[in-house]
């Protein structure tokens, strides 16, 4: 009966999300939303994908990875190569971007996830920087001058990717596999002692997170006409990290909300990039002072809405929140 209720909420969210997407599509094609707003909307959605994918790695599995921009870069370049060099269609490029990033996730994940805490952070930070330097030095993808990419990202693709990301990660989290990841976050030694293959689940979370970061990379590349290695530096990684931390570690709806709010703030401050970083740090400091657990703490938004006893139903809500 409980899963039935969950299912109903799930379909309700899907219906709302579809209505929202269609309305936005009409607004875009009708010209009500000017290109600036459309662009902001796309950025918000791409950032939601990034935030939710990193949320799985940091918030759920508790692996402090700060090289997420590396996966974004791999996705961006892989998709750009697919469309610009090989002339393949955009959906194939999105998929290829995800797969390329996931493959990188395996290669990076297996050795680095043996590390814990600070060491893992340093290793993943290094990975992000390495990816940036690698793309900087490959002439095939334009080196430092970057690579021009045609604008293929459209609203249906963006919103579809956002919804798929949220649904997949929510479904993963709300299953025994998600609980296995949570147990690693809570206490790795105990998780091991309970028969959880911790390495497997850490790498799995890393792969799924990397996959969606790659998808976000594809959307990003085909939205901005040009991709350059400096766009994928460690500041980008920190941007994503901040969404997750501000939203509340362990709360998917929190990271979605944080991605929306912070993208709006930074878009309106984009003429002053230096101020933007100051504001970011200020927001962080203020958050740490007044709400160290993040916007929503570890709870999902449904827990606040319903205050019901089974607070873990929050998953589906992420969908709803993209809508809101």
């Amino acid at each position, binding site marked *: 009966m409980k899963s039935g209720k969950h299912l109903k909420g799930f379909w309700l969210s899907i219906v709302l999300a579809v209505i929202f997407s269609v309305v936005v599509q009409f607004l875009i094609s009708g010209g009500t939303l000017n290109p600036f707003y459309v662009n902001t909307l796309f950025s918000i959605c791409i950032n939601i994908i990034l935030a939710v994918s990193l949320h799985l790695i940091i918030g759920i599995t508790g692996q402090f990875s700060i090289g997420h921009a590396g996966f974004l870069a791999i996705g961006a370049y892989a998709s750009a190569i697919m469309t610009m060099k090989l002339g393949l269609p955009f959906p194939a490029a999105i998929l290829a971007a995800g797969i390329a990033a996931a493959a990188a996730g395996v290669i990076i994940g297996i050795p680095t996830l043996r590390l814990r805490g600070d060491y893992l952070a340093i290793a993943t930070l290094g990975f992000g920087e390495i990816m940036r330097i690698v793309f900087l030095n490959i002439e095939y993808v334009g080196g430092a001058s970057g690579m021009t990419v045609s604008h293929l990202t459209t609203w249906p693709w963006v919103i579809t990717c956002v919804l798929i990301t949220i649904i997949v990660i929510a479904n*993963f989290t709300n*299953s025994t596999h998600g609980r296995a990841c949570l147990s690693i976050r809570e206490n790795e030694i105990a998780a091991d002692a309970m028969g959880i293959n911790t390495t497997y689940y850490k790498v799995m979370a890393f792969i799924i997170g990397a996959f969606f970061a790659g998808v976000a990379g594809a959307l990003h590349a085909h939205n901005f006409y040009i991709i350059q290695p400096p766009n994928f530096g460690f500041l980008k990684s920190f941007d994503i990290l901040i969404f997750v931390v501000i939203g509340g570690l362990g709360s998917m709806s929190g990271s979605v909300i944080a991605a929306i709010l912070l993208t709006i703030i930074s878009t309106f401050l984009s003429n002053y990039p230096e101020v933007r970083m100051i504001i970011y740090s200020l927001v962080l400091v203020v958050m740490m002072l007044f709400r160290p657990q993040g916007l929503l703490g570890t709870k999902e938004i449904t827990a606040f809405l319903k205050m019901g006893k089974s607070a873990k139903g929050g998953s589906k809500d992420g969908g709803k929140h993209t809508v809101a």
Partner: protein
Amino acid sequence: MAANTPLLKVDHAGIQFGGLKAVSDVNLELQKGELVGLIGPNGAGKTTFFNLLTGVYVPTEGSISLEGDKLRGLAPHKITKKGISRTFQNIRLFSDLTVLDNVKIAYHSLAKHSIFSSIFRLPSHFSGEREMEEKAIEFLKIFKLDDVLYEQARNLPYGQQRRLEIARALAASPKLLLLDEPAAGMNPQETEELMNLIGLIREQFNLTILLIEHDMNLVMGVCERIYVLDHGQLIAQGTPEQIRNNPKVIEAYLGEEVS
């Protein structure tokens, strides 16, 4: 009977950290169904020995086998699947998760539904999750924790946290249960309840239990045999009566008599 291989056989096992021999040359055998105590002064290497058994550390000497299978070099989660489950001296619950989720995680290795079916919400996901949930609730009833199913583990009183940890260890359906100071920090009444609980689960789950404990009342009261560890070495073994009167044990605990 004689042909029976012991459930657990520890053969000259030990571990060395650099120059320090934390545990050395320990021989120990547990028959199926026994309840055995492991005692020793602080720093004797009792918890280290548990860590050897559960694969947290790999023994640098000797061997450990469960029902004749060598355990050396197996990852902890594999050893758990083979049938050794444990609790921890300092409670290690998944404290931000609910009581129910804590137990469900112990059932994880029995889950039949794959990641794929969970992501796409295939029927096997729902049946698998429902089965787990029912089993976990049923199980928590035995431990009288069914009224706090959706409570975060961190919010439970100490005694209940201990009980939940034992419940979680048992949910992994072990053959051998290792309890690391289960009565630590408990008042006499809680210890009494714990003793009853240990007796109960032993009967109900047909378990073999190895128990580290400082509370001599508890150890002498429930254990059939006792091993004594000091400075990483076994110094005595026998029935509670024998241990109580063993001069070496008295020396280890109280120091040498001044002559």
